[in-house]
């Protein structure tokens, strides 16, 4: 028995072992096969970055393979929670576009000829030096962009204002958000908003005025929709002359006549006061009233508003008194009201006043400094806030919210930058429109244009195109086929944003790091390298001592510590790890500030819930701002309003997005959108060509009939270089912010009769 049993045991053992080995082999072998079979995807490595386009500043993850960006996904860990838009989704395509500028070019006898960097920069330095020597420092200028990296705008500003000695530093943010910047500074004492995107998750009423959020800031609109769907009591009020995609989704749509909405804001304030929807305690503690010159009383404010009672202004606004009362009630009575606006408010001759009035509504109702209750101006460019507003890279300002016109502010910056007292000129430089006018008058003889396309983006474009011809124009850009290139004497090939390193700062005071992921093509260089090179050639090499992005950033964050913008704690090391940080952020262990002027802001005294510390007495200002009708009122000769704006598929002058086939096909070509009634009166059909004429110029373009346009208003976008709508757009500007009014131009239209050959 024993023998038999032993034999069986051995056999069993062998059998069992074989079975285990066979099963294990199958299991593990199968696993191995699955590891080989399951696709790894098209990306070798993912890199955190931010989007190149609008001021939402979405966090993106860029997927890289074989040295190229091949995928873009929303960064789920970032403030946008993984949501980006269709333009951002095309960043991989944009990063690989053909036709990049790869070598410097100099215009010789009207033709652009390739040159070495040394030849091109020597010529630029020679022309700038010669002009400075012969005509003074104010004969040269820098025209920058809200798309340059912060380190680049900071360096240009420092070089021109404290090195060369001219305040002629301006740029395209003047065209898009100067009114918001001045509006905030007047009301709260400092630029940049109190609120943040986080408020979108808490608001119970959205007051959207002059913003087509759906098309211009889609990820923010998606967030508003999620808020609305999670709480059906959330109300959305949209004020816009056009029934935009945003307006179509509103609970309440107020189609105001273009140019009149300041009356609406004052009328809403009047209703809020009359119905007792204001907060006397908050006003007493935190608000002053001012008539534009002097401090006035609450009673003066109430008396001022009487002229704007709904029944008095409704007709001119194109609304009914009931609509105004309802909007005012929702604004004042909602648990948390958030206002959002952008170019419909900023690009206006009363842009600053409009900004003041929006903030005023929040101040009198105490709809501010609480989650969901805030005014928040949306931004058009990826780095207009951080790069230009915060660094003071506009003609009238200095870093950290300082003003050129204030001697103590100039002294502070001269001390910080270590230059002799009196180096910074006391007179503000030329703002965008006046800079190009000065070129036309040959007062500005040499100008460096970086990362922007003024030949297409300036209003009254023909006038300023002629002006550019009179100036020695140096253009640094990633493409050399832009409209501005036609007027450039020197073209410098620049690096695309992910071909260099630096910081972007978006709408809600959030700074995000852009890291270099790919090399620039050909000989293209970062704009910072170009500026450092220029500084050295102009003899300011020692002054512009920070020559790498990190050095510039470290210098700038230390400079910021001398102001209430303090973000000394936002280091590159932190930005590499974190998904952006919101300033103020004074120390490296500070988490950043979501809501400014309220508890949690390091500059708010302990124990205080709200403190508008930008003002000496800690009180924000409600201004009594009268409605002044625009010069661009319609007349018999110009019976329609032309208003311009963006479409969802295109960005700015289309230099990038219009080269992407999906976006180009989807947007179609530039055209005028017209209401069926106006089309009927002008006997127009879809696709007909019309001649549009304003006091500034005329142009021919196709029409598309759309029920989303209001009668009396035609709309066009400005992305198409072959459809230069800015040739007819008014160059009237806000007298304070100097921001041009792109939104209201009186025009006439007629069917175009092609000239017979």
């Amino acid at each position, binding site marked *: 028995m024993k023998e038999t049993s032993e034999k069986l045991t051995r056999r069993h053992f062998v059998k069992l072992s074989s079975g285990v080995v066979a099963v294990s082999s199958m299991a593990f072998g*199968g696993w191995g096969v699955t590891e080989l079979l399951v696709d790894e995807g*098209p990306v070798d490595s993912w890199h955190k970055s931010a989007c190149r386009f609008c001021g939402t500043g979405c966090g993106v993850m860029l997927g890289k393979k074989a040295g190229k960006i091949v995928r*873009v996904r929303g960064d789920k860990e970032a403030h946008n929670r993984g*949501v980006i838009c269709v333009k951002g*989704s*095309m960043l991989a395509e944009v990063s690989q576009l053909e036709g990049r500028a790869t070598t410097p070019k100099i215009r010789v006898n009207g033709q652009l000829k390739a040159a070495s960097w040394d030849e091109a920069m020597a010529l630029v330095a020679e022309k700038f030096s010669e002009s400075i020597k012969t005509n003074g420092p104010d004969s040269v200028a820098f025209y920058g962009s809200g798309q340059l990296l912060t380190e680049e705008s900071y360096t240009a500003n420092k070089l021109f204002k404290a090195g060369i000695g001219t305040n002629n530093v301006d740029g395209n943010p003047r065209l898009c958000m100067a009114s918001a910047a001045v509006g905030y500074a007047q009301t709260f004492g400092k630029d940049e908003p109190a609120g943040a995107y986080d408020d979108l998750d808490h608001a119970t009423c959205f007051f959207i005025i002059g913003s087509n959020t759906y098309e211009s800031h889609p990820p923010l609109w998606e967030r508003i929709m999620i808020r609305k769907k999670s709480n059906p009591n959330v109300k959305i009020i949209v004020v816009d002359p056009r029934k935009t995609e945003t307006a179509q989704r509103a609970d309440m749509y107020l189609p105001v006549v273009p140019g009149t909405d300041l009356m609406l804001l004052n009328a809403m304030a009047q209703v809020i006061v009359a119905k007792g929807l204001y907060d006397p305690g908050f006003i007493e503690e935190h608000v002053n009233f001012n008539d534009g010159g002097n401090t006035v009383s609450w009673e003066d404010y109430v008396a001022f508003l009487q002229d704007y009672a709904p029944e008095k202004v409704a007709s001119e606004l194109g609304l009914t008194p009931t609509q105004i009362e309802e909007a005012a009630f929702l604004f004042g009575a909602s648990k948390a009201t958030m206002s959002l606006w952008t170019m419909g408010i900023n690009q206006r001759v009363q842009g600053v006043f409009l900004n003041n009035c929006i903030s005023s509504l929040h101040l009198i109702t105490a709809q501010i400094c609480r989650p969901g209750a805030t005014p928040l101006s949306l931004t058009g460019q990826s780095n207009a806030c951080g790069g230009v507003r915060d660094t003071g890279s506009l003609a009238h300002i200095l870093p950290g919210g300082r003003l050129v016109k204030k001697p103590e502010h100039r002294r502070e910056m001269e001390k910080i930058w270590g230059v002799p007292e009196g180096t910074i000129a006391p007179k503000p430089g030329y703002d965008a429109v006046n800079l190009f006018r000065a070129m036309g008058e040959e007062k500005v003889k040499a100008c460096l244009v970086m990362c922007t396309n003024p030949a297409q983006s300036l209003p009254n474009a023909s006038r300023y195109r002629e002006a550019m011809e009179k100036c020695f124009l140096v253009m640094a850009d990633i493409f050399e086929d832009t409209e501005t290139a036609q007027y450039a004497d020197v073209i410098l090939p620049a690096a695309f944003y992910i071909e260099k390193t630096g910081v972007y700062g978006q709408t809600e005071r959030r700074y995000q790091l852009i890291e270099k992921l790919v090399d620039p093509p050909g000989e293209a260089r970062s704009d910072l390298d170009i500026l450092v090179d220029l500084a050295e050639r102009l003899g300011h090499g020692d002054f512009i001592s920070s020559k790498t992005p990190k050095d510039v950033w470290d210098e700038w964050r230390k400079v910021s510590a001398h102001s209430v913008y303090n973000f000394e704690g936002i280091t590159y090391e932190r930005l590499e790890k974190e998904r952006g940080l919101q300033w103020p952020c004074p120390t490296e262990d500070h988490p950043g500030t979501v809501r400014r002027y309220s508890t949690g802001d390091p500059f708010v005294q302990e124990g205080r819930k709200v403190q508008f510390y930008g003002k000496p007495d800690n009180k924000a200002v409600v201004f009594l701002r009268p409605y002044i009708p625009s010069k661009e009122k319609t007349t018999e000769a110009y019976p329609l309003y032309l208003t311009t704006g963006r479409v969802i598929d295109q960005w700015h002058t289309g230099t990038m997005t219009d080269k992407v086939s999906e976006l180009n096909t989807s947007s179609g070509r530039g055209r005028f959108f017209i209401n069926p009634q106006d089309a009927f009166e002008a006997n127009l059909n879809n696709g007909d060509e019309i001649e549009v004429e304003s006091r500034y110029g005329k142009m021919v373009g196709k029409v598309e009939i759309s029920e989303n346009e209001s009668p009396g208003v035609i709309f066009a976008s400005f992305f198409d270089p072959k459809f230069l709508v800015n040739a007819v757009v008014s160059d009237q500007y806000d007298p304070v912010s100097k921001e041009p009014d792109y939104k209201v131009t009186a025009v006439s239209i007629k069917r175009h009769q092609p000239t017979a050959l």
Partner: protein
Amino acid sequence: MNIEIIKIVGLILVLIELILLFKLLSNKGTIKARSKWLAFFAIITIPIITIFTANYHVFETSKTVQACMSCHVMKPMGNDMLNHESQTLAARHMTNNWIKEDQCYGCHKDYGLNGTLKAKTDGYRHLMRYVTGTYSEPIVFRGEFDSQNCLNCHQGTPSFENLKAHEPVVLNLEKETSTISCTNCHGKAHPTRAQRTPGHSDYDQLMGEGAEFEQITDEDVSSIKAWLTNTK
């Protein structure tokens, strides 16, 4: 076929097999030639049918949300999806009853037989990784989510087709080298990697027992169909 019926058929087959094997063993050496059909069934036919049935059962049950959530690393996805307060894409689909059954599999299985094979292959890889402990938290999706999975339901619906903003997306998806993803504009599908990392403030809640799984009824489905076909 109803999974419960398969389960019962499988159990009956196992029972028959056990009886047959017991009979064979107890009559070892005395099996008569006429009883050899019994051996054939016991050793060949019934085991094959049982294995096939068991496999089918596993294939079917592994499609369920419960099967996915049986690995603790998948719990955050499941718990989040079942949380009616959550705003992730998965939760919104669940809360609004947009997918009747097998919600995880419904979005993650690519189209056709190839898609099934791919899903099962990856499922097996997940299983082996899990049982051998060769993974680390937070787990990471391997490869690329196919937007066709979204289009399988959304394409053809008025809300998809009538939206002008979808035009460039469709153009990109039609390209041979499509790069876009529906989730770019419509947000995160699940809790983020940070939330799923041990130590994060949301981790414990996401790893908890979570909400009860509510089976969607046919009534729900007909109400969704009515809503979808209402093009007003």
